């Protein structure tokens, strides 16, 4: 109860500071909008909306050219022809995001009714949503075209077979021709003639679709900002020591653990409120702004539990900063260095799959990594609590570690 009294008092002090409240709740929302907007979902003009699509045409036949014309006509994608070597070099250097390759046997294969495969290769850093959109356009156009060619070819074949045969003896009636066209159409639905494979250079097997910058905005910014509140705990303890009230609390009949617990709780509560505001904005506000909204995933309870662990870990980290820093300047410096550094390293700004590719297992040393993984898995990949058990255990482990070191190094004198 005494610890709760400290918590209540600290919350009273915090909510009297309007600047701090604004910073706590508004700043993360600005970041969410900026990061989600970075997808390019807002502010696009008509001209800019066409995604450039470098194409290597190894076929050169009529069907390949028709395909490219149809892709251009479909809207949304602009075909740009490249030589194969040039396209691969540019892709390798990330000068272009993706390349569509039309195989040499494309025209012949279509004409013979043989399945053909178009290859769409994208760079690791390419916007996955854009790549997916391109793939759908190419696939749709290619299949429509293949179907059209086949039906026309079938009809032409039937026509040629009946040439010279009296009308009464003709085997292919109008009804049979219609049935043939319908059958080919239905087959095309279940077994498309043209397949589009999408992969990254060097990948032999398809991997789990990585997430882009906009996808991680809500979980990433939540993790970053909930951890940033850790410095509020450190500042609050420093202020208590500075004015001498900490001495008075030490002279009161309460344990040191209860005292530090009481100083941690306000951060936990403000962290939870902050997360609530970010999530609410992510779900409702982003939709109103025409951006991709966030969801709480298939197991909202698991998401809430991860957020509680996240806020607890941040509070324990606040105690650690308070224990390590000796001056107000050190609190500011340590907080900026550690919290932003860990946020960057832990996938709050750059998607984890990129960080992991660049840094290997290094991001695992920060709690942000585990919190981001858990929230992305729950909120974006739709996984459940059992799937993020390791991440939750890691967060709990960091919490215990931070609090234990903080308690050990804390100077109560």
């Amino acid at each position, binding site marked *: 109860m005494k610890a709760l*009294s400290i918590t209540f008092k600290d919350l009273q002090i915090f909510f009297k500071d309007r600047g701090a409240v604004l910073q706590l709740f508004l700043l993360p929302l600005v970041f969410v909008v900026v990061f989600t907007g970075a997808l390019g979902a807002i502010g696009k003009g008509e001209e800019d909306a066409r995604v450039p699509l470098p194409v290597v045409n190894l076929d050169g036949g009529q069907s390949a050219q028709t395909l490219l014309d149809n892709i251009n006509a479909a809207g949304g994608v602009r075909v740009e022809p490249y030589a194969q070597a040039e396209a691969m070099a540019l892709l390798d250097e990330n000068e272009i995001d993706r390349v569509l390759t039309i195989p040499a046997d494309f025209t012949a294969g279509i004409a013979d009714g043989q399945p053909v495969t178009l290859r769409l290769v994208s760079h690791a850093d390419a916007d996955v949503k854009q790549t997916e959109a391109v793939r759908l356009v190419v696939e749709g156009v290619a299949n429509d075209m293949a179907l059209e060619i086949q039906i026309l070819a079938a009809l032409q074949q039937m026509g040629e077979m009946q040439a010279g045969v009296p009308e009464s003896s003709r085997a292919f009636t109008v009804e049979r021709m219609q049935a043939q066209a319908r059958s080919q159409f239905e087959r095309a639905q279940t077994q498309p003639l043209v397949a589009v494979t999408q992969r990254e250079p060097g990948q032999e097997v398809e991997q789990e679709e990585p997430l882009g910058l906009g996808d991680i905005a809500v979980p990433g910014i939540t993790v970053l900002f909930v951890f940033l509140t850790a410095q509020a705990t450190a500042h609050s303890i420093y202020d208590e020591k500075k*004015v001498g009230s900490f001495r*008075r609390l*030490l*002279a009161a009949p309460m344990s040191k653990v209860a005292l530090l617990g009481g100083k941690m709780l306000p951060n936990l509560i403000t962290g939870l409120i902050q997360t609530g505001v970010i999530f609410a904005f992510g779900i409702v506000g982003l939709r109103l702004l025409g951006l991709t909204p966030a969801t709480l995933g298939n197991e909202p309870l698991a998401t809430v539990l991860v957020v509680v662990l996240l806020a607890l870990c941040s509070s324990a980290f606040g105690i650690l900063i308070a224990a390590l820093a000796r001056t107000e300047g050190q609190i500011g410096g340590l907080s900026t260095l550690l919290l932003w550094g860990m946020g960057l390293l832990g996938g709050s700004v750059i998607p984890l799959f990129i960080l992991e590719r660049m840094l290997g297992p290094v991001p695992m040393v920060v709690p942000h990594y585990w919190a981001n993984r858990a929230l992305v898995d729950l909120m974006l990949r739709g996984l459940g609590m059992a799937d993020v058990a390791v991440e939750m255990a890691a967060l709990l482990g960091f919490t215990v570690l931070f609090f234990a070191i903080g308690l050990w190094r804390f100077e109560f004198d």
Partner: protein
Amino acid sequence: MATILEVNNLVKKYGDFEAVKGISFSVEEGEVFGLLGPNGAGKTTAISMLTGVLPPMSGTARIGGYDIGENLEEVKKINGLVPQDLALYPTLSARANLNFFGRIYGLRGRELKGRVDDVLRIVALTERADGTVEKFSGGMKRRVNIAAGLLHQPRLLFLDEPTVGVDPQSRNHIFESVLRLNRERGMSIVYTSHYMEEVELLCNRVAIIDEGRIIALDTIKNLIAMLGGGVIHVGLPQVDDALLAQLSALPAVKEATLVPRPAAPPPAEGVEPETQEREPVAAGEVVKIVAEHSQQAIVNVIDFLNEQDISLTSLEILEPNLESVFLHLTGKKLRE
């Protein structure tokens, strides 16, 4: 009268620096006990150990029969602490501050409200209870600071320099509050200060503390009596042992000793010793004469010096008070 506080050989070190060097004293129930000493003498460190803020390096203390090492939780319930700092939350009102400190001591509901109203009355701040502390004058803040230490009705109250930076009117308020708490509620009080006037006004007994040691402990009357009939400082061009012996032998003179020259202060950071401003020091030496009767002693000393054809460079008659006692014992002024 029962003993509420008994301190035995309490020691506290910070690294190599020994802040408190084995102090021992006791305080009786209902007594106002003074700890008088200059800044840095070790008063606050001593109080911090007795209130459980700092652990002692060695030594023991019992408060209300409880050992501070073994029953600190019980000791904390008996103690009240008014720290030297304004240990308050400036953005909260006086009442909100007091409510918080009351809850820390386990007070709730109507009892808490009653106690808050009571302590606000004691420090005469009932009218300003809902005002934000940051808008209060220094004296008012000091009074809220005291009120916060009274909420749980401690049996032993530690007041650590409670009048620092306070205007005379608020200082009087504080004195009245302290005396009322002691007389009307029987609260035992340990009062630290470097203002001898406050200690003389409020305390029954005083321990004079300097450089971590208690150098004298008695009632104010007895401490002043150490000065005998008074103390006279006589400035002379040159002094030797023979002259001191002759002065000591004069009628009405109890003792004549050479006042040690104060050590030169260390040079200020970044300033060369030669360029530092220094207080002009009178040439010659100063002899401290402890008199049995100060007026008679002055006459005898002046007559003797005239006979010897020794001219006086200065003459200072010290008032019989704690300041003089401190000067007599340490050769330093309390506020040096």
